[in-house]
């Protein structure tokens, strides 16, 4: 059964309307009887690099398409850059987007494609060399789009999104279909773009790619928001553990008793003890456990704090939702 409490929106009380680049309220999209996006309420603060996480079919692309005026919401309201999502013509010139992969004209070169898009968006041609350089395609600008690899097509799609020097960049699964090296390149590219003082909304179902670039996260599952907030809050929500490994394996039981005496729950993982951190500072806790072990003559060969990955927390969150 779902948690009836509303999704967490940390700092929402201090976030004013003007701080939000994207603000959606109870946004819903139904196709027949199927609810794809279910009463989604989200605020994205200006300057954030926001990750939009959810499994395939969770409603990420549909939500983005509604923000971009491609899909009409069934109900709910929203604003992008202060304008209603029912009037995308009022804000799309300040938004760059790559949705469902780059769709360009295969017989045209990269430069020709960008020129057509610049005309269409009323942007200057002068940005073309600049954006090609930013995505690392300067020397391939005269190649036909059809001859590009998937990674190059994705980068050209991002170059196209950047043509209008947008305040908000919306990228839907930009690493889809890329090999590991391509994914790292793309992550670096997004980090570079984000450093230019833009707001970025980035969707993915590959969490490791978001972990390093996003400072804000939204998690949706079956069209419903299950988390919204700063990524460090999401990562540090639960699951941090202190690991202790005595020099002598024979000290393991004695060490477990010491940890239990300190009031902590203890588990075992091979030749190490695992102590979950419920609250408080994990480093402080590690230091006190080290002192307590030393006091009874146990020498620790290993002592470290293990923080949960985004993926681990995400899976835990989804399991909680399912339960």
């Amino acid at each position: 059964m779902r948690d009836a409490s509303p999704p967490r929106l940390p700092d929402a009380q201090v976030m004013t309307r003007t701080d939000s680049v994207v603000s959606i309220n109870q946004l819903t999209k139904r196709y027949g009887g199927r609810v794809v996006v279910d009463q989604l309420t989200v605020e994205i603060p200006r300057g954030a690099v926001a990750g939009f996480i959810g499994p395939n079919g969770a409603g990420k692309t549909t939500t983005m398409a509604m923000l971009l005026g491609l899909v009409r919401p069934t109900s709910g309201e929203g604003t992008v850059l202060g304008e209603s999502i029912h009037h995308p013509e009022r804000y799309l010139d300040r938004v760059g987007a790559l949705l469902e992969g780059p769709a360009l004209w295969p017989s045209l070169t990269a430069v020709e494609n960008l020129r057509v898009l610049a005309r269409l968006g009323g942007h200057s041609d002068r940005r073309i060399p600049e954006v090609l350089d930013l995505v690392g395609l300067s020397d391939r600008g005269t190649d036909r789009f059809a001859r590009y690899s998937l990674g190059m097509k994705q980068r050209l799609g991002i170059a196209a999104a950047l043509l209008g020097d947008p305040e908000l960049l919306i990228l839907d699964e930009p690493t889809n279909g890329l090999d590991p090296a391509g994914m790292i390149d793309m992550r670096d590219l997004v980090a570079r773009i984000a450093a230019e003082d833009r707001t970025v909304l980035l969707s993915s179902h590959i969490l490791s790619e978001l972990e390093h670039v996003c400072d804000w996260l939204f998690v949706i599952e079956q069209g419903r928001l299950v988390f919204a907030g700063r990524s460090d809050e999401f990562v540090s929500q639960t699951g941090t553990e202190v690991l202790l490994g005595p020099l002598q394996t024979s000290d393991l039981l004695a060490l477990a008793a010491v940890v239990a005496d300190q009031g902590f729950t203890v588990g075992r993982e091979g030749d190490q003890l695992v102590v979950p951190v419920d609250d408080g500072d994990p480093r402080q806790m590690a230091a006190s456990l080290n002192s307590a072990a030393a006091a009874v003559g146990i020498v620790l060969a290993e002592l470290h704090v293990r923080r949960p990955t985004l993926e681990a927390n995400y899976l835990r969150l989804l399991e909680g939702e399912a339960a």
Partner: protein
Amino acid sequence: MIRTFRAELDRLTGRKVVLAAAVIVLVFGIGGASVVLASAKPARDASGGLTPTIERLSGSGGGTEVFRFAAAFAGTLVFVVFVGLFAMEFSRGTYRTMLLRQPLRVRLLAGKIAALLCVAAVVLAATEVVMWLSARVQASGAGVATTDWVSLAGLGSAVSDYGMVMLWVTGYAVLGMTVAVLLRSVPLALAAGIAWAGPIEHLIGDAWPTASKVFPGLLLEIVGEGGTPAVSAARAALTVAAYLAVAAAITGTVFVRRDVTS
């Protein structure tokens, strides 16, 4: 609309497209003139409106009538080209890309069709000139006199024939756009378009004479032919114009209201 028009024009005036268009103009201009002149018969032997007669072609407007006759034969081809040009954007996902730059959808479609028709106008003008020159060279072999072709009346006919063919192309363009926007798939739109403009209308037309006053494809052919004894060109053009207004309204409404999901 201007932005879309310029963007589309940019795409349509690339070097390769211009070269391809030049080749088509030459082949169609020379080949079309040959076919029309070869099929020309004396008036007493002509069977119907689609058969060019030596007497008509020998008149002052004969040089450009060749162009009008040749164009009328390419009806289905022109329709298919426009269906393909509009439906292809759905298959490639490029409407999505374009709508992110031009979210006002009616303006997007209007700019696109305006640019296509603008290019079509230039291609048709070039074809008319090439065909006139080619027909003049080949006319004597078909027993067609060309002395009246170079006259003011001939120039007037050239303008009027050009206008008729342009109207006819505009009709196919709008109908092609409608089929493409409604079906959103190249194979489906082409299948439906070819089936309708080709066999369906003609088969029904053969069995039911009134069809030529009702069906848009047959009416467009009549416009291209410059009228038939049963339906005048003006009446056909008016009926076609009404069809096009309805088709454009339906296309605009559907394109505005539908979600763009691919």
